[in-house]
């Protein structure tokens, strides 16, 4: 047992396309913490996040969510996990409003509760002008905001965001950071996967770096205001010159 955080990842491994995409990864995350997950392309970030979201099963190891084995209790994902996958997959023929209602209902909300949750997300992410618009005609940035709203509509305890700032303009990036800090302050544990080191420095409490499927670094970010130390660590790991 590594600890008693909201999320305990214990020795998780997963092979994909005949190679170890994720190998023996372990970490812990408490409620209110924001973890930045860094790594070059193919480092295993998306595979790790897919396993944490319940879309992929680990070959080895355990994922404990609120103390329960996630594989043995896949229903935990229904209420506890919100996931924004990379490129925010949506149903092009459904409107923004229909997406939010559908995701809330799929997470088990009643019709009235789903309506309230959808209204709250529309207001919080400023989606009101887009409410009746089909997802298929939204811009990439608008799709990203809708994907984020769908991930948060049921107020999950664990929020998994894969490249959430993709295609967002600087104002929206600022809003996203505010939203992440707001959710963390409300007690949610957040994992933010990104290629942008500045994004991690701006909102994360801790950073984990994956390289070739292994967790090479997991440490708090305090005292690294400019992100210089993080940059040095990241490039050291990515280029194989880590101390």
């Amino acid at each position, binding site marked *: 047992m590594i600890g008693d955080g909201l999320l305990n990842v214990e020795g998780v491994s997963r092979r*994909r396309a005949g190679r170890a995409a994720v190998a023996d990864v372990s970490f812990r995350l408490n409620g209110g913490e924001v973890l930045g997950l860094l790594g070059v392309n193919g480092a295993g970030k998306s595979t790790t996040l897919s396993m944490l979201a319940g879309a992929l099963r680990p070959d080895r190891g355990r994922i404990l969510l609120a103390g329960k084995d996630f594989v043995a209790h896949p229903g935990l994902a*229904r209420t506890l996990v919100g996931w924004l*996958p990379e490129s925010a*997959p949506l149903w092009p023929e459904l409107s923004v409003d229909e997406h939010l209602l559908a995701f809330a*209902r799929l997470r088990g909300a009643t019709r009235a509760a789903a309506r309230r949750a959808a209204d709250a997300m529309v207001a919080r992410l400023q989606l009101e002008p887009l409410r009746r618009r089909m997802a298929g005609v939204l811009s990439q940035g608008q799709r990203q905001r809708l994907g984020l709203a*769908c991930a948060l509509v049921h107020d999950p305890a664990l929020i998994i965001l894969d490249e959430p700032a993709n295609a967002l303009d600087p104002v929206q990036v600022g809003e996203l950071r505010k939203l992440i800090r707001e959710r963390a302050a409300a007690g949610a544990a957040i994992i933010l996967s990104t290629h942008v080191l500045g994004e991690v420095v701006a909102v994360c409490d801790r950073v984990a770096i994956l390289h070739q499927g292994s967790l090479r670094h997991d440490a708090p970010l305090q005292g690294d205001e400019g992100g210089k130390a993080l940059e040095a660590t990241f490039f050291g790991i990515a280029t194989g010159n880590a101390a």
Partner: protein
Amino acid sequence: MTVLAVTRLELRRLAVRPLAWALAALTIAWLAWTFILGLGQFVAQQVKYAAVADAPGFTDLVAIPLLAELAKLAFLVVPLMTMTQLAGERRNGTLALLASTGLPPWRIVLGKYLAVLVWLALWLMATLAMPLVVGLESTADWGKLASATLGTALMLATLAAIGIACSAATSFPAIAAAMALIVTLALWTIDRGAQAAGVNGGFLEWLTMATHLQNLLRGLVTTADLAWFALAIAFALTLAIRRLGADRERQ
């Protein structure tokens, strides 16, 4: 109940996609034309049949051939309706998103299957409305019509289950539709070789869908035929559920 949440979501998607409307409009127009032709012939032959004892009536000459025509169209329509159900979702990345809501594969499969069944039931009812309206003013054989309707409904449900299973097997909707078409045609005619060789009865005849549908279209409802359809539906849906479950293992 999350099965119904999936069904509602799927029905909403069907309602706003042009494919479902186009298929419904074109096929119902074709069936209406078939019905009018059949009705015209039936009226024209009334004098001839009036002198014959136990002559075939409106149900045999108009209503059941109309259902048989719908069954023929279903070989094409149902694979087109089911092809995107899981294959399209997998291709768009929304299937992983559905899986991440903690829904077990059986709920996703059942929810989508029910949505297709609702569409097919409406299609069948729109078709059935034609002979029903005329039948109310004539001497229809209601028992035979009910049996034929049950048989057609079971056939549609079986084709839908096979379509969902094929859609679960691939990421390409067109391949799913082609697979469903081939599998259902094979299931329809699997005993043809045996019949050509003069062999009747046996396992191949039992396996053939036509054997069981034809009994129902003739007004003969047997437990064995109903059980065949139930088994075929359960088998196809089980395959779909297992394939979806394997996605989480082997992606």
